[in-house]
């Protein structure tokens, strides 16, 4: 084969990438440089990579975040409400480190409760609205497993930890998101199984929501659950520490949802 017919292999491309940006281990440098020296195709490829890399690094070096974005992020860090963006709706919650001190006194809690009564709309979200959150995309990466408790994820909402179903059931966490539903903060963790089925586990802040009137009630492992259909998806709702939880997904058996929802994870999943 002549050099003009030569096509770099995947391994060649990987080596060239590392040679171009200087991350190739010293132990392999001489070997790869000799290989490049013996091939006009590889040499051209390496030259192109180096030209692109130099241009990209120069462009990156002169690109800075705009001052207003810095101010906004600084404000977020201090607990100020974010401005509304085109990319997505900003949550109404203040950051956690700014929020916790605010609940330090009973007076503050009372004021907050009184304000909430004034500000929040009279209606409350329906459980099937919460179920529809399961169809939304994740906005944050998957939480890892809790260090000392393999049946829990290292993420919680309203003081309730989410279960880690990967070892027991094969459903792994793939992302999470926060929303607001009719004035109620919600948090959803998404899970996927090996067949690519996806479910969302939503916890709704505040008092329990009314279960759907056409739901089917059952008790699994001592947990009272209501199964229902929501916009083509199967869903179940139940209570954990007085908060409504909703587990929903398309193409997932109702029995699977019931089993997952009622799972206690060796006692670590608090109800």
């Amino acid at each position, binding site marked *: 084969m002549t050099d003009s017919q030569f096509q770099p292999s995947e391994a060649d491309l990987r080596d060239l*990438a590392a040679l171009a940006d200087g991350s190739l281990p010293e132990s392999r440098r001489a070997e790869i440089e000799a290989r490049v020296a013996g091939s006009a195709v590889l040499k051209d*490829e390496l030259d192109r990579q180096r030209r692109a890399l130099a241009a990209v690094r120069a462009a990156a070096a002169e*690109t800075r*975040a*705009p001052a207003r*974005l810095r101010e906004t992020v600084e404000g977020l860090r201090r607990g100020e409400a*974010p401005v509304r963006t085109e*990319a*997505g709706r900003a949550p109404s919650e203040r950051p956690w480190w700014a929020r916790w001190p605010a609940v330090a006194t009973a007076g503050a809690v009372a004021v907050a409760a009184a304000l909430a009564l004034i500000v929040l709309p009279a209606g409350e979200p329906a459980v099937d609205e919460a179920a529809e959150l399961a169809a939304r995309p994740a*906005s944050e990466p998957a939480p890892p497993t809790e260090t000392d408790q393999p049946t829990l994820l290292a993420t919680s909402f309203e003081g309730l930890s989410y279960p880690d179903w990967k070892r027991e059931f094969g459903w792994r966490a793939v992302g999470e998101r926060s929303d607001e539903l009719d004035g109620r903060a919600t948090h959803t963790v998404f899970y996927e199984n090996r067949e690519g089925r996806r479910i969302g586990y939503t916890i709704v802040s505040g008092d329990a929501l009314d279960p759907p009137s056409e739901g089917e009630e059952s008790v699994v492992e001592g947990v009272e659950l209501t199964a229902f259909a929501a916009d083509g998806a199967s869903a179940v709702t139940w209570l954990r520490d007085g908060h409504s939880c909703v587990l929903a997904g398309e193409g997932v058996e109702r029995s699977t949802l019931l089993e997952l929802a009622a799972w206690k994870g060796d006692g670590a999943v608090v109800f």
Partner: protein
Amino acid sequence: MPAVSAEADELRRLDPEAASDHIDRLYRIALAMSGSPETAEDLVQETYVNVLSRPRFLRREDDLGYLVRALRNVWYSHLRARRSRPQQAELSADQLVAASGDPQLSLEAGEVLAAIAALPEEFRDAVAAVDVGGLSYAEAAKALGVAEGTIMSRLSRGRARVAEALAVEETGS
């Protein structure tokens, strides 16, 4: 077999102050991914809103890698939402520079960022994470959910396309 230190395996809480130190790098990556200063600003703001709204726990992961993953999720949500709205034309290099409002940003830099934004998704994300954002191959692989070798070959192809696009710009053809 190399020992994994207990410290590396422990969960640690993301420090909000440290997270905000990465704003320049996140903005560069967002700009390279989207090709639009306005969109990049929105994406970075939304990423910080999400990340700072609750305590975040990381294990075997650095802050920047985590933030890039969060940014990428926000970017894909944005793309899904945009599909249901009229499409905006891609910005040319001079439009991108003008829209940035940054007098320090040169036309050459605008050309490079526009060339990266025009790459196919998998090449664009690799170039944005490693060459623009400065992530290592391992960090980028974790952030983008692919193998390290895949990052390297995508980088090779992405860089080659950027070089070709810039050469075309130079010759004016």
